[in-house]
């Protein structure tokens, strides 16, 4: 086992260590949680943390690896969340098994987000830099408004959908049969959702996301995506199709965000479309930037810490968000400080030397 690990390539070794770290963290937290040692507020955050890790890792694929700034990532999460909730609620009667229904909901969420990603990608990926950022921002807002107009219910006849553009219709207009239920009530969002998300499902999704993103990056397609980031003209000159690989990166990123959205949506009995607004997109972007562009490990840690932090700061009461902002600024300054970097590089060197001396 150890020999196989030593023989693996350097970048593969870091990947295996990442997987190992995530698995260990899951086992420890699961044991603590089952023993009731986690505070209630922390235990309630386990699923959202998994969702945000997936969001951060998938956005890192667009921003860090494809090299295009996307400000609408929460939009894909939203598509995934509401399509996932609809799928789960509509199938509640026919599929009683919650884990199976959750799986179907996540797949449905991922597929809808993938389609949204493809449709958005067609015009957006012709743009670069600031322009692309602005259009993705607009897309996030559009998704929010569209979902605000949706009234969805299901009964024995199947799914009923009203697109409430003028704001005149209500759930009554669905004309549901007896025993039917309303799933989404326009601006009031999804209500009465059966919460079937679990920490285990979150962990599995994180692992799948990591495997997809890390293996993609080390493969032929991932190399092409990174080549576009580094130098588009050179990439074309060696025969790499720009649109194809940009789209591949963008749609993969959207798909994963959709799955995370479905998991997130099914974790709460009430869910508003405004939850997935511009602020959420920026929040996820902060995870990515703080963790380091292209650095998957960093995204995981940043997403975890920054999701726990606001809750952990409740002791500061009304100064909570102020302290949160100050901590963010300090971390940003700290990670970009040359002297600190040199200090840590020195430590790493010493540790290596000590290891060599000992062996």
């Amino acid at each position: 086992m150890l020999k196989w690990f030593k023989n693996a390539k350097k970048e593969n070794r870091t990947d295996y260590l990442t997987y190992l770290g995530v698995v260990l963290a899951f086992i420890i937290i699961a044991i603590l949680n089952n023993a009731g040692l986690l505070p209630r507020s922390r235990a309630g955050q386990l699923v959202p943390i998994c969702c945000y890790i997936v969001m951060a890792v998938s956005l890192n694929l667009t921003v860090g690896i494809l090299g295009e700034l996307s400000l609408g990532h929460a939009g894909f999460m939203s598509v995934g969340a509401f399509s996932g909730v609809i799928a789960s609620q509509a199938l509640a009667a026919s599929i009683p098994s919650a884990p199976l229904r959750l799986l179907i909901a996540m797949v449905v969420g991922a597929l809808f987000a993938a389609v949204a990603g493809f449709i958005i990608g067609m015009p957006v990926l012709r743009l670069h830099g600031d322009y692309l950022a602005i259009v993705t921002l607009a897309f996030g807002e559009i998704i929010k408004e569209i979902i605000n107009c949706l009234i969805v219910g299901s009964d024995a006849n199947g799914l009923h959908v009203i697109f409430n553009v003028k704001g005149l219709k209500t759930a009554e207009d669905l004309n549901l049969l007896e025993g039917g239920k309303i799933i989404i009530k326009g601006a009031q969002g999804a209500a009465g959702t059966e919460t079937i998300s679990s920490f285990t499902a979150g962990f599995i999704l994180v692992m799948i996301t990591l495997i997809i993103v890390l293996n993609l990056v080390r493969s032929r397609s991932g190399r092409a995506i990174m080549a576009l980031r580094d130098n588009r003209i050179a990439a074309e000159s060696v025969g790499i199709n720009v649109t194809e690989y940009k789209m591949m990166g963008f749609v993969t990123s959207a798909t994963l965000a959709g799955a995370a959205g479905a998991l997130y949506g099914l974790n709460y009995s009430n869910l508003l479309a405004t939850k997935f607004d511009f602020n959420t997109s920026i929040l996820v972007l902060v995870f990515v930037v703080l963790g380091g562009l292209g650095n998957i490990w960093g995204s995981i840690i940043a997403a975890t810490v920054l999701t726990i932090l606001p809750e952990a700061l409740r002791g500061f009461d009304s100064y909570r968000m102020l302290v949160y902002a100050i901590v963010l600024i300090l971390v940003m300054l700290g990670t970009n400080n040359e002297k600190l970097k040199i200090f840590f590089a020195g430590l790493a060197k010493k540790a290596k030397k000590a290891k060599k001396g000992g062996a």
Partner: protein
Amino acid sequence: MGKVKSVNDSPLVPLPTNAFVPERDLLKTPILETRHLGIDFGGLKAVEDFNLIIGRTEIAGLIGPNGAGKTTIFNLLTKVYQPTRGTILFDGYDTHEMDTVALNKAGVARTFQNIRLFNNLTVEDNVKLGLHNDIKYGMVPGILRLPSYWKEEKRSHEKAMELLSIFNMEGMASWQAGSLPYGAQRRLEIIRALATDPKLLLLDEPAAGMNPSETAELMENIVAIRDRFQIAVLLIEHDMNLVMSICEGIAVLNFGKLIAKGTPEQIQANPVVIEAYLGKKHGEEA
């Protein structure tokens, strides 16, 4: 590649009599032929009526004073710019509807004057990107690491190492491309271009920034590459020693127009060329 189309949208004009191709390539289709090629930038005719024929295994040089339009011609040949006038025939086929990617797949590879490597990737990955269209597995086998992934990655690794050995760069395979010394970056660009299995290699100032011994080594390597892969090379270069020693045919460009093409001896003796480089003799002015 499409079918051969009618290529003359400009009036038929006989090719310049000074069109030079090495004797061994005379009976084969030229790898590259441009007819009345031209491009305008606004009102400026950057390249005008550019006619050039390159033989299948020729090492050709494109020289001219600064701003003559040499790099513009490379950008036209690789369709970074769309020509305003004229035709480019590659291997006998009209390239009218081809873009940069299609041309590369057909067999045109290039390097850049201001080096364009994938700086954040390793040297090996840069070469593997040159092999991109040679590696046969898609996105899903890559993510699932199916047997085809391991097989193709192993094959491309070996091929990349073999290509790197041309310039003795195997030892740098795991370096980051952006951290390479300048000369090594130039050599890596040539290797990456070669990895795409071209029939015509365009080198934009390959010796720029190299010292004399590096240049001498580069000259040997360019000839060795031509002999080994049996491809044509067109290079832009200001180092006259390099151009005159290894180029069989030389084209001279001035103000976007081809003023001469011939063997190094013919070019050196050509009064128009001398005038373009050194200016008119004092007595002949006015």
